[in-house]
């Protein structure tokens, strides 16, 4: 679970071009609406990157805004579906 969380955060950093800012991220860190780089294009790119790196799928009927509310909500979503 620790590795998964680190991988999610690393993917966030890469996709959003945070340049290491994610080093301060914790489960409680708000994402959607709080991180300016996370616009609608970035959300789609993030899903594609997580799908590609972690073998997780983001089924359309399970994804909504709450998925990306915080680092924790995203990690939980991925953890529940990772490891294809």
């Amino acid at each position: 679970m620790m590795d998964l969380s680190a991988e999610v955060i690393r993917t966030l950093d890469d996709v959003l071009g945070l340049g290491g800012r994610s080093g301060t991220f914790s489960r409680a860190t708000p994402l959607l609406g709080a991180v300016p780089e996370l616009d609608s294009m970035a959300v789609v790119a993030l899903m594609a990157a997580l799908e590609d790196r972690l073998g997780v799928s983001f089924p359309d009927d399970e994804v909504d805004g709450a998925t990306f509310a915080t680092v924790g909500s995203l990690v939980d979503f991925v953890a529940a579906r990772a490891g294809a």
Partner: protein
Amino acid sequence: MPDAVEAATVQPPPTPFFLPAGRRGRRFAIHHAPARRAARSAIVYLHPLAEEMNKSRRMAALAARALAADGHAVLQVDLYGCGDSEGDFAEAGWDDWVDDALAAMRWLQQSAPAAPVFWGLRAGCLVAAQAACAAPAPSALALWQPPLDGRTVLQQFLRVGAAARFGAGTVKEYLAEARQSLAGGREVEIAGYRLGRRLADGIEASRLAPCAGIRRVHWFELSMRPEAALPPASTAAIAAWTDAGVAVDAQLIAGPAFWQSAEIVDVPALVAATVHGLGDGDPA
């Protein structure tokens, strides 16, 4: 290969102009004349969709300029309804875009009757491939991060629309509504872009597939991960092209997906690899 007879010329600046596209209006284009008397190839650049076009302008300009400096004639063209071209994005059709690519190449060949190359980024790769297949002479393709299939492109574009509306239901609900609207001939608004049925259908039907008109493909993908390799789907597609008798050189470049990054970033390694690839050996 440097030509000793060609004196080192000052590279002409890029020239913006409007290219006539018949009864369908004019297209904004930028011509990069080659830094030598006879162009080594004639390259038409096809941009990606919507916001990706805006985010990648700088990289396209850098590469176009570098290619021209290396002796190629390059024409960047804004497709119907995109950028500074005439037309309404909501009324665009995929076939219009392929026609634009062909018109651009005809224009470029007037001053640079050299080996044609259709160069695309993302969805532009699909336009490039279809144009090359329809072109009167055999061409080469230069593909930056090619999608294998227009269905993925449309799906990703619709997902952007869903993400822009987060809070009002799931992605699935939005996608179902969007597809229903499109099927009913109604436009769908995606992060400021109005997508019409004609274009959606055209994007969805497009494929990256070999044909008699394509001799050579230069394939470039990017990855931020140092240990990455080309995705299996790309490797399989490349094998299919090779089996069909097309010469393919494929490279993975370390760098960010500049067409979608929040801040404008440069990937000089991709520019260098493209110049090197297109300058290598047999032009067609």
